[in-house]
């Protein structure tokens, strides 16, 4: 469990970074918090010739609230998402989800950009981004572009990001930010989710007019469940139970040592029910459970 040999680069500016990446793209990875990359290197699951450190590039760690959205720099840590006042006020779902990422030491180093770039299908940020109708900002020497969360995540550890691009920011829409729920099943505090569910709703005249339900841990990428979303709109008395039923029916998860497919479907039911109930119990979703 020692990494293979690589060249280490520590550029000081974004253009310098993008230039280095452009020259080495197919053989390079960028290093953010290292919480996923270093295990991959040590296990020799990745063997890049070049490692380009984002740590000394300024300007990638701001959090800004703009009209209708919150923009978060790629290098913002999970811990900052947990504690930042703008996040808490504008996208409380994101603040809540942050607390489920690993444990404190991981959250102190790991970054939101690293999480979405890594695209673990059990990770929290991808479903938060999906639930909040988010976008991923990407930069390369060719310029800047933005891509919706729906289009960004393609498969296990696979995204629409091209090898010469880096993630610069995540943008969360606040349209659905104020009725929300988040619930996750983890074997131990700090573990990756077996199943996690994020629910975000837009409210008009006291009625839920739009609902977004995103689920981690059931497919090769984070998935939305339209049937569950439809069940939540209007908010009937049985909406949470109906959404849970619909979510559980809609997924076809894999079986592995952490649980059979049937078990995961039950978890989807349980966690969707809990997340939906939180969304119905108004804006504060109460104490963390899970």
């Amino acid at each position, binding site marked *: 469990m020692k990494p293979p040999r690589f060249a280490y680069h520590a550029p000081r500016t974004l253009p310098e970074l993008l230039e280095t990446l452009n020259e080495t793209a197919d053989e390079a990875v960028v290093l953010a918090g290292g919480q996923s990359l270093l295990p991959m290197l040590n296990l020799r699951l990745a063997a890049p010739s070049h490692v380009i450190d984002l740590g000394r590039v300024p300007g990638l760690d701001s959090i800004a609230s703009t009209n209708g959205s919150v923009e978060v720099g790629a290098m913002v840590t999970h811990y900052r998402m947990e504690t930042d006042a703008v996040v808490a006020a504008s996208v409380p779902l994101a603040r809540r989800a942050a607390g489920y990422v690993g444990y404190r030491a991981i959250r102190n180093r790991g970054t939101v950009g690293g999480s979405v770039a890594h695209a673990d299908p059990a990770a929290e940020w991808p479903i938060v981004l999906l639930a909040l109708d988010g976008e991923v900002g990407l930069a390369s020497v060719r310029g800047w572009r933005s891509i919706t969360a729906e289009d960004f995540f393609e498969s296990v550890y696979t995204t629409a990001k091209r090898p010469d691009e880096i993630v610069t920011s995540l943008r969360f829409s606040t349209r659905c930010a104020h009725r929300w729920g988040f619930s996750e099943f983890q*074997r131990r505090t700090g573990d990756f989710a077996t199943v996690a569910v994020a629910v975000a709703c837009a409210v008009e005249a006291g009625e839920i007019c739009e609902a977004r339900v995103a689920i981690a841990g059931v497919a090769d990428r984070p998935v939305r469940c339209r049937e569950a979303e439809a069940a939540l709109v209007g908010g009937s008395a049985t909406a949470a139970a109906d959404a849970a039923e619909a979510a559980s029916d809609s997924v076809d998860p894999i079986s592995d040592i952490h649980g059979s497919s049937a078990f995961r479907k039950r978890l989807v039911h349980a966690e969707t029910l809990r997340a939906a109930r939180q969304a119905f119990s108004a804006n504060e979703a109460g104490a963390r459970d899970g």
Partner: protein
Amino acid sequence: MTTEGAPRFFGARVPRRQDDRLLRGDGRYVADINPAGVLAAKFVRSHEAHATVASLDIEAAAAAESVKAVFVGEDFAGTEMRCVSSYLGFQESAQPILAVDRVRHVGEALAMVVADNEYLAEDASELVVAHLDPLPTVVDIDTALDAGCAPLHPGWQHNAFVRRQIETYGFGDTCSAAPHRVSIELHNGRHSGIPMENRACVAEHDPGTGRFRLHTTTQIPHLVRAGLSWALGVPESLIQVIAPDVGGGFGVKAQLYPEEVACCLAARRLGRPVKWVEDRREHFVAAHHSREHRHTVTGYFDDDGTILALEADIAVDMGAYSVFPWTATMDGGMAMGILPGPYRIREYSVASTSVCTNKTPYGAYRGVARPAACFSIERLLDQIARHLGVDRVEIRNRNLLSEGDYPWRSPSGLVYDSGSLLESLDAVLELGDHEGLLKRQADARAAGRLVGVGLAVFTEQTAHTTQEFKQRGVPIVFGYETAKVRLDASGTAVVSASIHDHGQGLETTLAQVAADRLGLDLEQIRVEYGDTEQVAYGAGTFASRSAVLAGGAVTKAADAVADTLRLVAAHILEAAPEDMVVESGRVSVAGSPNQFLNTSELCRLIYQRPERLPEGVEPCLEASRTYDAHPGTGAYTNAAHLASVEIDPLTGKSRVLSYAVVEDCGPMINPTIVEGQIFGGVAQGIGTALFEEFLYDQAGQPLSTTFADYLVPVMSDIPDFRVAHLQTPSPHTIGGLKGMGEGGAIAPGAVIASAVEDALSHLGTVTVNRLPLTPERVLGYIDAANGSGASS
């Protein structure tokens, strides 16, 4: 000649003296040891569970940057590891240092790459190509024992290392007369001790003298030396084994491993030190496993729940090889012996099979077989209680041994020396607030929540020596420990012992014992261990023995040195030796405290002014003694555990809410250290109960090879915890001490299973019989209790 005052340190909550060093990062582990010219080794391991080795391509690796050698099986073919039991019918296995023609588990070493550093060694190791032709794999007990299954070792008749059976004379008649019986089949997941520090060693060989020096992370330096001597064909005088700071052992490091032999052989071939530091992925497949027992137990009992007879069939999945020094009989034998547990059971019939499979070999883990035995007998007691509609506490009270029963000869032939079983059960109900738990359970149920209460009682053989081990058929009988005490001319002492401290706190407790016997302050005592040059022989630290045996040996050696102080002081002070008191840094005349010599002054005189010594007294303040806790049948501790558990009805996830332990390890040298051992043991037991399992697929591929897949309990899984002590001395040991290193880990599986079953009891009848209790398994129990049949 003992006229000491009350002990100053025995029984005191002295802080652990090693913690300052260890917590500041000033510990010195094998990985910190870098002799000049040291090379790094990396092992290439089998990716097949069972295969013939067709060929190994090593040319590319041998030609890689800085590679000094690539060794394969033939290079070390003259050396192999056998650990043979003297039990009738035992089938021997030969474990190669590097596989020669066949591999028998994933992780078995095929080749050893030695290079300048571990990065380059790992790079080169990836260039070795192993051509392995797969053979049918045997990954479970039933397949292994099937008559049609080909034996895994040459010359074998079947896939059992050994089968053993005992039955008491009256068993058959008692069973036929018994009005009731219940049976239960129990499964314990394969798991292991998971020390924080992986295995590691540095081997050096001096061609001039022929001497080997091996730094290795082990609990048993002298036994490693013995095993190396056999394996290498080199006398023990030419082998020094040093275990420096060891980052946890739990039994995993109470073994000689092929990698240690390989590093010695490589160092001799290459004329340079060879170092190997295991990585975690290797640890999961190549450091030994433990705990995988399957028991079928039947209890025969009368109308009031008195158990009349016990029947058991035990099978343990020992993996591919019999390991040194335990042999593949250890767990099966232990379980046979202790299964009747703390109960007044007179008739017993048991069969035990040690099964060979294509899995990582099996060795010791804290509690050795007793967690499984406790799980079986305690689950059985709960079933008997349910069968008769008797309370779980009451059924135990009716069957537990009481004071008048001791010494108790168990139906398996163990002799329990003493105990406080009923008292400990009583006390734990109080300590753990049993009544309050039941009330909270009722409230929780009314609110639709699933809360259960579980309990278990056990007795544990500790500090057993010659008498016990000679019956176990092991090649080395672990009969005693050795300690040497030396006072120097400054009046400070060095205590050397054959045990090893890797968390047990012996560096502190042995100092407490020595300080009292020598009348010194703790700061004046240095305790050393782990180097075979320090004392002559001894087994090491395992089996809850070190405080008792090393404590006894230190007592004897310190007393011998103190006697010399008395002789000389009496001569100088013109008093009688038997009137001399060794206390508080002085040797004084009893009743005349003003007549004294400072111990430091006396020590200086003895070494530096030999003309002041009385006739016949040598200028030597050093003594080496052994202690065997005669008669060697063991000092029996006991404990009662009580816990409450809440289950999430939607996901099956269990959380331990509270945990209480009342334990009796006799007089305590240091209660804080005893409690630390209990906490740690229970934490590991929670791993046994809820989390830890090495899973394999049908091809024998291990599925739990990182900490993301093999789950150990973390801080948030550890409940509110209470512990209290009873102190029933052993009649056999110096100071009445009993061992207590393992006890905490024994009961949690039984307790938590009992609580989970209890949590579901209002829904329907289920029998919780499989550990660990993963959420999915618990959900299955919930479904079964609900009678929905929709078990996942």
